[in-house]
C-alpha cells in the first residue's frame, strides 16, 4: 500500500521551485481531461476538465443535480456499478489514465466516503480492518496497528478504543461517519473522495469531521462535495462550481467566494439562486 505513494513524493521534491506554473502542474494528483458522462441517453457531465492538487482540499459546490456527485463518483469509478452508464475522456492519476486501470486497483488508491454513513454490520474493529483484509493483509499486528492509526486520524480512537469488538451500528451518526472515514483511511488512499459527508450530521459532529479532514490533508488528497458553502469556504483550498453538468469555474476558494470570474458563480455564492 505504501508503494503507490512514492511517485507523488518524488514529483514534489523534483519539481523546479523556480517556475510556479510548472510546480503547480507537478503537484497535480488527479487530472480530468474532457470528461463526458451519460446515464443511458441522458448526458450528466459535459466536458469536465480540471486538475486536483496533491495534499490540498478541493471542494465541489453547486445546486442539486448539477453533476458534482456524478463527477466525484467517476473519479473512483463507482458509477460503473450502475447499469447503462458510459464515460468518455481521460482521468489521469499521477499521469496514468485510471479509466483504463483495473477497477479494484483504482479504488484502493482513490477511497470514498459516502453521504450516508454505511458501516458494515460487523464490529468496529472489523469495519476498519475490512479494507486491509480484502487487499490481502493477514498479519494481525499490522492490522491492529493500522486500525488504531486510522481511528486516531479519524478522531475516533479515544471514543471507541474500549469497545472495538462492539457492533459499529451501535455508534451515533457522527461516530459512524468518522468510522467510515477511518475505514477509508486504513488502506492509505492517495485520494479521498467525500460525497456530502456531513449532510446528515448535526453542527458539532460536522465540526469534528471538518477538523479531522484538516488534520489528514498532508496524508492524502481530499476532494469533497458539499451543499454547504460555508463548509467549502472553511475547508477547501480550491473550490469548483458546477452547474447543469458543466464545470463553470475552479479556482482558489478565496477567489471563488470573493471575486469569481463568472457571473453564474457569483449569483450562486451570493445566494441569488440554488
Amino acid at each position: 500500500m505504501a508503494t503507490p505513494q512514492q511517485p507523488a513524493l518524488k514529483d514534489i521534491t523534483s519539481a523546479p521551485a523556480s517556475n510556479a506554473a510548472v510546480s503547480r502542474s507537478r503537484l497535480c494528483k488527479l487530472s480530468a481531461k474532457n470528461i463526458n458522462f451519460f446515464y443511458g441517453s441522458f448526458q450528466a457531465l459535459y466536458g469536465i476538465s480540471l486538475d486536483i492538487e496533491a495534499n490540498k482540499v478541493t471542494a465541489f459546490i453547486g445546486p442539486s443535480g448539477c453533476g458534482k456527485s456524478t463527477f466525484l463518483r467517476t473519479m473512483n469509478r463507482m458509477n460503473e456499478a450502475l447499469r447503462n452508464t458510459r464515460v468518455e475522456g481521460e482521468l489521469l492519476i499521477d499521469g496514468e489514465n485510471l479509466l483504463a486501470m483495473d477497477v479494484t486497483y483504482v479504488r484502493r488508491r482513490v477511497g470514498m466516503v459516502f453521504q450516508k454513513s454505511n458501516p458494515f454490520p460487523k464490529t468496529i474493529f472489523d469495519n476498519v480492518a475490512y479494507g486491509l483484509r480484502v487487499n490481502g493483509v493477514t498479519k494481525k499486528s499490522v492490522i491492529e496497528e493500522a486500525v488504531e492509526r486510522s481511528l486516531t486520524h479519524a478522531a475516533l480512537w479515544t471514543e471507541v478504543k474500549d469497545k472495538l469488538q462492539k457492533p459499529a451500528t451501535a455508534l451515533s451518526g457522527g461516530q459512524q461517519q468518522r468510522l467510515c472515514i477511518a475505514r477509508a483511511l486504513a488502506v492509505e488512499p492517495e485520494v479521498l473522495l467525500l460525497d456530502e459527508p456531513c449532510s446528515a450530521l448535526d453542527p458539532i459532529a460536522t465540526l469534528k469531521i471538518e477538523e479531522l479532514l484538516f488534520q489528514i490533508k498532508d496524508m492524502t488528497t481530499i476532494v469533497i462535495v458539499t451543499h454547504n458553502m460555508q463548509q467549502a469556504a472553511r475547508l477547501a483550498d480550491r473550490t469548483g462550481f458546477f452547474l447543469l453538468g458543466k464545470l463553470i469555474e475552479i479556482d482558489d476558494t478565496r477567489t471563488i467566494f470573493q471575486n469569481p470570474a463568472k457571473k453564474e458563480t457569483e449569483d450562486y455564492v451570493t445566494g441569488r439562486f440554488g
Partner: protein
Amino acid sequence: MTQEISLRRRITNVVMLSLTGFCTVLVIGVLFFILGYLFVHGARSLNLAFFTQLPKPSGETGGGMANAIVGSGKVLLIAVLIGVPIGSLAGIFLAEYSNKTFAFTIRYVVDLLNGIPSIVIGIVAYSLVVLPMKHYSTLAGGVALGIMMIPIAVRTTEEFLLAVPNSLREGAMALGATKAKTIFTVVVPAAISGLISGMMLNLARVAGETAPLLFTALGNMFWSKGWLQPVATLPVMIYNYALAPAEDLHQQAWAAGFVLLALVLAINITARLIIARGPASSRR
C-alpha cells in the same frame, strides 16, 4: 338522501366486518382444532418406547418409531445438502449478477417449479435415483426433498439479499473489494440471519412431505444402514399406520403426527427468533 347513503354504508360495513371476522375465526378455529385434536390423541399415545424401540411385527402391540425418527433426520440432512447450496447460490446469482430479463425468466421458472405437485417431484427422484440404482434409498428420498427445497431457497435468498442496502455494497467496493468479495464478506453476512431462518422454514415445510417419499425412501420396519437402503420416515409411517386395520397402529400414527408437528413448530419458532434478533432486522 345523505342519511340513506350513510345507512347503506353502515350496513355494508357491519356485514363485511362480520364476514371477515367470521372467516378469520374459521381459519384460526381450524388450525386450533387440528392442533388440539393432534395434541390430545398424540400425547396420549406417546411414551418412551416410541422414541427408543423399533416397530413391532403385525399382531404384537407396543413398539416405537425410533428408526423413522432417525430416518427422517437422515433424509432431511441430504435434502439440506442438496437444496440449500443449489438454491442459495442461484439466489445469489439472481440478486447480484443477472440482468433484469434473465432474472425475470429464472424467477418465473422457479415459481413454476414451486408449483409442481410433490408427487411429480417424487417420480423425478424415482427415475433419477431409484431406477438407475435399482433400489429405494435414503439418498433417493433426500434428493426428492432437496429438489422440493430449491425454489423456496432461491426466492428467500434473493429477497434477503435484495433487502441489504446498496450503500453497503458501495462501501465495500470503494475499499477495493471485488464484486465476489463484496458479496461473500459483506452482503451475505448482513443477510445471514434471514438466510438461515429462511432455510429453516423451508426445511420445516418439506419435513412433512409424504408423497415424494412413498416411492423413493419407501419405508422400513428396521434400522436402515448407510444411505442406500430403504428407510422409514415419520410422514410415511403415519400414512401406513393410519391405513392399517389396528387400533394400536392408529395410536402410533397419532403419536408420530404429534412428534412431527412438534418438530416443525420447533424449527419454525427458532427461525422466527433468529429473524427477530438478526443484524438485518429493520431496527438498524
